[in-house]
């Protein structure tokens, strides 16, 4: 596998940029670059073939099933990719005067309104650009809320042990300490443990709804009431919105802050790890603290509003990931209410179908109605076979492995989320593959232990990558020319 630095330098005359049409102006000598600039000069076909080759080493949603739990790897309409390539959307500078960017401001304004409706809450900010960024912004809002109320001793955030992985770090970056709250045997928040943890040092709770076991918190109203009664606020991690879209709203469950992952639920492909967007919706007491600028409407025109004196300030250079927001807007417009409702119906139906068909071949620690995902355990696999081996063997069958070893409350977890866009043919094949793998684990474990066999590389040494990190290509001493 060659890197671009090992390709032969071969750039012909011409190139991307024209010759200059202005005189040359000297750069002050003391400021000029003297450091090396070892970037190869390659021909366009060399570059095209290199990255096309690399792309073929990947598995994306368009290549096949991708049941990566908690990530909602659904198929997204291609239209949404086309609309965000319209020059009228891409070629606008963020500091464009408002009269020249009315279409862009309209998209942001209208999408905010739709997200507000989906959440059933008071106001929305589109500024956070990832789920974890939405969490962080939410924690900033909590901090401001208690600061202005003079309750600065509220420094603790409660986190159920079934919450999302980013939650503890988001709370910590905002200066809160974290107290874990145990789940009971049904996989839901243990109300006694919650009572015991609640006092006047608690700022709030971060709930993942449904939780990372794919279980809906049936006593959600009791949980949020208890937190509110203790003077705290309720943060809802919305990564799992796909499971109740068009059926229920976090605002009706007692949420004070709710973040969307537009790249999970509302149609932006994951891009190999981003960019996404993490807009937040808030309840009435938090509205004034939302980041600036706001997008507001005056009659028929739209503008930015910076005059929000109690705001936490800004969390992004500009207005968040506009082109991600535009995809979400296109997606919601196309689906309408019926389409949104069908998302959660099919997502939950598909997950329950897989859960039912896989629970005999694999251990299912929480055997109950699930939402959009469920968690199997690989703890009791025979012959020394582990969850990791199952994951690697799935690669041989052309399936992207589920999320593994998360959530932590299930030993050797396999977290499976089929999404609504998969049909019965894919689901049945996955069931067959998983059952075959379970049989292989018993009859011929080396097939799993040495997997993958058909991937671009064999099993990689991740310990070495962790212990002796080699993070850059060792460039030759000489510039490439």
């Amino acid at each position, binding site marked *: 596998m060659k890197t671009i630095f090992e390709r032969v330098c071969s750039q012909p005359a011409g190139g991307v940029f024209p010759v200059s049409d202005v005189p040359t102006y000297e750069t002050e000598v003391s400021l000029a670059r003297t450091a090396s600039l070892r970037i190869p000069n390659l021909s366009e076909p060399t570059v095209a073939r290199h990255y096309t080759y690399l792309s073929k*080493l990947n598995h994306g949603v368009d290549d096949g099933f991708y049941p990566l739990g908690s990530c909602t790897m659904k198929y997204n309409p291609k239209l949404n990719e086309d609309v965000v390539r319209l020059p009228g*959307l891409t070629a606008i500078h963020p500091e464009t005067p408002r009269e020249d960017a009315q279409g862009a401001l309209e998209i942001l304004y209208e999408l905010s309104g739709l997200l507000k409706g989906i959440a059933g809450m008071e106001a929305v900010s589109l500024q956070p650009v990832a789920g974890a960024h939405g969490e962080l912004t939410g924690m900033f809002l909590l901090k401001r809320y208690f600061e202005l109320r003079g309750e600065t001793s509220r420094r603790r955030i409660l986190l159920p042990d079934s919450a999302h992985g980013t939650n503890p770090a988001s709370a910590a970056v905002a200066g809160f300490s974290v107290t874990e709250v145990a789940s009971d045997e049904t996989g839901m928040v243990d109300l006694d443990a919650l009572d015991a943890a609640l006092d006047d040092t608690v700022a709030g709770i971060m709930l993942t709804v449904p939780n990372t076991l794919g279980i809906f918190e049936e006593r959600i109203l009791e949980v949020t009431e208890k937190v509110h009664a203790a003077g705290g606020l309720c943060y809802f991690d919305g990564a799992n919105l796909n499971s109740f879209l068009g059926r229920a709203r976090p605002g009706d469950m007692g949420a004070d802050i709710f973040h969307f992952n537009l790249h999970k639920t509302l149609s932006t492909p994951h891009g190999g790890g981003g960019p996404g967007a993490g807009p937040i919706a808030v309840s009435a007491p938090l509205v004034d603290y939302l980041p600036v600028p706001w997008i507001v409407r005056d009659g028929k025109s739209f503008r930015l509003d910076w005059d929000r004196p109690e705001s936490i300030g800004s969390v992004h250079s500009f207005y968040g990931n506009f082109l991600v927001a535009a995809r979400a807007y296109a997606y*919601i417009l196309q689906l309408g209410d019926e389409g949104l409702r069908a998302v959660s119906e099919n997502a939950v139906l598909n997950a329950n179908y897989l859960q039912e068909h896989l629970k005999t071949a694999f251990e299912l620690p929480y055997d109950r109605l699930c939402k959009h995902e469920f968690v199997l355990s690989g703890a009791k696999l025979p012959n020394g076979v582990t969850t990791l081996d199952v994951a690697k063997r799935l690669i041989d069958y052309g399936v992207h492995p589920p999320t593994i070893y998360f959530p932590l409350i299930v030993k050797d977890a396999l977290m499976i989320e089929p999404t609504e866009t998969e049909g019965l043919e894919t689901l049945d094949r996955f069931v067959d593959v998983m059952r075959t793998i379970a049989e292989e684990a018993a009859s011929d474990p080396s097939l799993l232990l*040495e997997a993958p066999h058909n991937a671009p*590389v064999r099993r990689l040494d991740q310990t070495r990558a962790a212990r002796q990190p080699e993070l850059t290509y060792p460039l030759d001493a000489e510039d490439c020319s």
Partner: protein
Amino acid sequence: MLEAIGLSSLDDLFRDIPEAVRSRFEPLGIPGRSEQEVAGEFAALASANAASTKASLLGGGVYDHYSPSIIGHMLSRTEFYTAYTPYQPEISQGTLSVMFEFQTLIAELTGMEIANASMYDGATSLAEAMLMASRIRRNTKIAVSKSLLPAYRRVLDTYAWAADLELCEVPFDTAGRLDLSGMPEDPAVLIVQSPNAFGVIESLAGVKDQLGDTLLIVSTYPMSLGLIEPPGALGADIVTGEGQSLGLPMGFGGPLLGLFATKKAYLRQMPGRVAGRTVDSEGATGYAMAAQTREQHIRRERATSNICTNSALCALAATVYLATVGADGLRHVARLNHDKAHYLAEKLCELDGYDLAFDAPFFNEFVVRVPGDPEGLRQMLDQAGFLVGGSEDLASLGVPNALRFAVTESRTREELDRVVRLLGGVR
């Protein structure tokens, strides 16, 4: 399928959501639409953005650069854009190889030893660098140059407030450059932007020597590094920046590309994902995520940052951009930016009442004091098809009656001459 799971209706799938919650549900009240109708709606929205038909001289962190065609084509490979974070390296070698190449390119460009695989944008990247420096030094006092872009300063203010850090402003001198005589005593770090909010290239040589144990963070504009000395060669401990100039559209300010580079010694304190080179079970070279014990999914509340999703696809764009233009192309395009901006500055200064606000070297962006109301001039240029701005930012930094001009390779001499004629006619 319902039968297979022992349920009789789709509603049964949601019986675990309390009835009190379900009964309060209200739909949005919008019908579904066909693909064709939505395409039409977006064509109308796009045409309502007159900006896309005008020539942009706007700057302040995002610029109207030319993006080679090949980038769009590579970004449209579904294997790249429909994949996620490479948690399973054996079927993610494409994404991981790109991360590795990107890290190498950014480290080389900035003159640093290592770089991560991207952050959200230039502003949050700088905020994370500030938090990292405070952790390394165990010191909450932060010195920040006053000539930082206000958009970045707002984000720093928010993060600093949340982390209980104290921001101390370091003034600029009459040339628009950092005035080190205004440094506070023993801060954890000095944060500088170069080129800064005025487009001025800071003279960083020797600054690090004066700082003692204080760390130096430089927020930079990567395209300028085709021409000017990178912060890494001038002693920076952390270099951040906005990568939009490397092949990304302006996109009304997002998605952008946060750059983050530092020294090897600080790897364990660095936020964000990194890919590393390793071997497979047969000894062949491959790539995997590395140094993950810093990250939120392992270290939880003790992680170096909460960042998870980053700007991977934007990093792919920057990687393809640099691979396509090469060192020669980068030097050339940086030169075009520099020379065109200097051409416009020279011509504007020949007009009565127009003068550079700062007598210091700049890259492709500069501040001009204008006769009369900058807003009136801005509107006049807008009517004629040219977008300029910056006057509010500049006024907030104590530079009133001024406009900021950013000139990229996208602008032609003919356009620049026209701007000069338009402004020359208004007297």
